[in-house]
């Protein structure tokens, strides 16, 4: 993370931190906090899709299914067994990851557009299963109601402003961790995988295993976001997890700049926030998104806020000790 980006994050964090305090001053302040809560949830989902789609270049258009698995896991454990909703966070992450590994295992080797089609089918099967009340646990088309409010350190969270800090705190943590991931050995290996699978395999990257791992990671994050969603809404139903949702997340990543963490957050903010800012725009919003996707692929395929991959310069290399052979300067 370079200094400029750190500055941007700092300013954004400071601005966001005071929003709930200012919200009380304006009559529809509460409403805007609610909008920002949605932006936060979408940012989390888009970031989790970004590791799969942006970093590893795997075209996943069934991401809402992982979100659904997490949300339903949390809801079922909370309503049936009385587990406090935030305690289910690791559990729903783990269940979503396990589910992702199971469904991705046989198809993850498929080429880009085939993977896209298969993940659409997988997402639809999950939605249909939820509607059909699979295992008698998901409550059919009405979903699950009566999920308990979360509490943190004995404090019950119920107001929008409180959820705001919970959600955006998780966003901040996610942004931090995913930046660390991008610089890690695993994260860089994913980029090799995206750019050239054969070269990656040749350089010793276990491509099949890494693809599964990245699916599990993205799904786990989407699953945990599902828990937050279930806690915030207190009721969930299958229509929140349709293919339209997956398409939106896909568009957020692509338009924001796939692989770019600030870009993806900006993409999520644009797609969820703009329709609130321009009310008349809401119905035509997806029309604009579709046109933007076509236009963008022709003129700016890297997205609005692309990632700048670190480049190695000769000066970055450790200086050769005395007696070392002469080295040609790298371009």
């Amino acid at each position, binding site marked *: 993370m370079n200094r400029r980006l750190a500055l941007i994050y700092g300013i954004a964090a400071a601005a966001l931190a005071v929003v709930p305090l200012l919200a009380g001053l304006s009559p529809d302040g509460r409403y805007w906090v609610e909008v920002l809560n949605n932006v936060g949830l979408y940012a989390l989902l888009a970031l989790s899709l970004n590791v799969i789609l942006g970093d590893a*270049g795997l*075209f996943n258009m069934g991401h809402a299914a992982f979100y659904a698995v997490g949300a339903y896991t949390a809801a079922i454990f909370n309503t049936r067994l009385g587990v406090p909703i935030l305690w289910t966070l690791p559990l729903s992450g783990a269940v979503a990851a396990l589910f992702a590994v199971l469904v991705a295992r*046989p*198809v993850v*080797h*498929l*080429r*880009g*557009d*085939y993977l*896209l*089609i*298969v993940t*659409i*089918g*997988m997402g*639809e*099967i999950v939605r*249909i*299963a939820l*509607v*059909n009340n699979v295992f008698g646990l998901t409550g059919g088309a009405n979903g699950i109601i009566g999920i308990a409010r979360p509490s943190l350190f004995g404090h019950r969270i119920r107001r929008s402003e409180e959820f705001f800090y919970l959600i955006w705190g998780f966003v901040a943590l996610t942004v931090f961790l995913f930046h660390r991931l991008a610089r890690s050995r695993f994260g860089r290996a994913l980029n090799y995988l995206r750019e050239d699978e054969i070269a990656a395999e040749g350089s010793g990257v276990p491509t099949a295993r890494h693809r599964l791992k990245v699916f599990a990671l993205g799904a786990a994050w989407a699953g945990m976001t599902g828990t937050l969603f279930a806690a915030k809404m207190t009721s969930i139903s299958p229509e929140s997890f349709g*293919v339209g949702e997956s*398409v939106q997340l*896909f*568009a957020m990543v*692509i338009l924001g700049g796939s692989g770019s963490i600030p870009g993806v957050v900006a993409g999520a903010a644009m797609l969820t926030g703009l329709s609130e800012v321009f009310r008349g725009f809401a*119905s*035509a919003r*997806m*029309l604009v*998104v*579709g*046109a*933007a*996707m*076509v*236009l*963008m*692929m*022709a003129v700016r*395929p890297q997205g609005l806020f692309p990632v700048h991959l670190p480049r190695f310069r000769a000066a970055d290399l450790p200086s050769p000790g005395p007696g070392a052979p002469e080295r040609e300067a790298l371009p």
Partner: protein
Amino acid sequence: MRPFLEQCTNGLAVGSIYALIALGYTMVYGVLKLINFAHGDLFTYGAYLGMTLLTSLLLHERLGIGPGLLVLALMVMGLVALLGVLLERVAYRPVRSSPRLNAVVSALGASIFLQNGLMLVYGARYQVYPDVLPQTAFSILGLHVPVLRVGVVLASVAMMAVLYFFVQRTRLGAAVRAVAIDPDAARLMGIDVNKIIMLVFVIGPALGGAAGLLVGLYYGQISFTMGWTYGMKAFTAAILGGIGNIPGAMLGGLLLGLIEALGAAYLSMAWRDAIAYGVLILILIVRPSGLLGERVADKV
């Protein structure tokens, strides 16, 4: 036995519609190696255009039902073909030389655009087709068969036969096949590859538009999102038969229609859509080249 056979005729009718749409996927895939994600939406445009023209021009009253519907079908096919050519120009040609995945995103964007454009014009509610065809049925060997069902199958089979003749027996058809096999070699043989690609974007959408009209007439109800479902199923049919393979798309469509009709009748109606997706996933795992496909190497 009788319900079983009735399910089969229903499956064949739906399957022949899937086959018509699948031909569009398979032909575009053949020449461009690209999944045309917007194809399902072109199909929907066919259904909506058919409805609008049917209610505004009233051709079936002026020319009689048979010729009226024929003229209507030709108009719908022409208009959707025009849309297909436009789509190729705007969404696919600019990205033809970029990485494949850019083309996929562009196709997806075009699909989102087309679908929401339709919603803005007609509204989000489903639309009802006017009742123009007689709802009669006849009995054959004790089997109750609606005339409409036979009409759908006959119309689809006729169009597929014309297409098959065109691709296999004409010079232009040979050019299409040549471009599908090797565009560079085809160019060296004096074939205008751009023209052939355009031709494919005329034929595929025209058939898809006709399928939309048939769905409207057959089910009497259309919605602006139906392109996704039908598109996914038709794509499944194309994969099932072997993508890029024209007889394969026809076979795959009919087969999928049968599987779905029988599955819905004997397994579970509620899981009807999941059956097709299950077939899709299974076929990609077990035999990605499909039933009639040969080339496997670079496909998946």
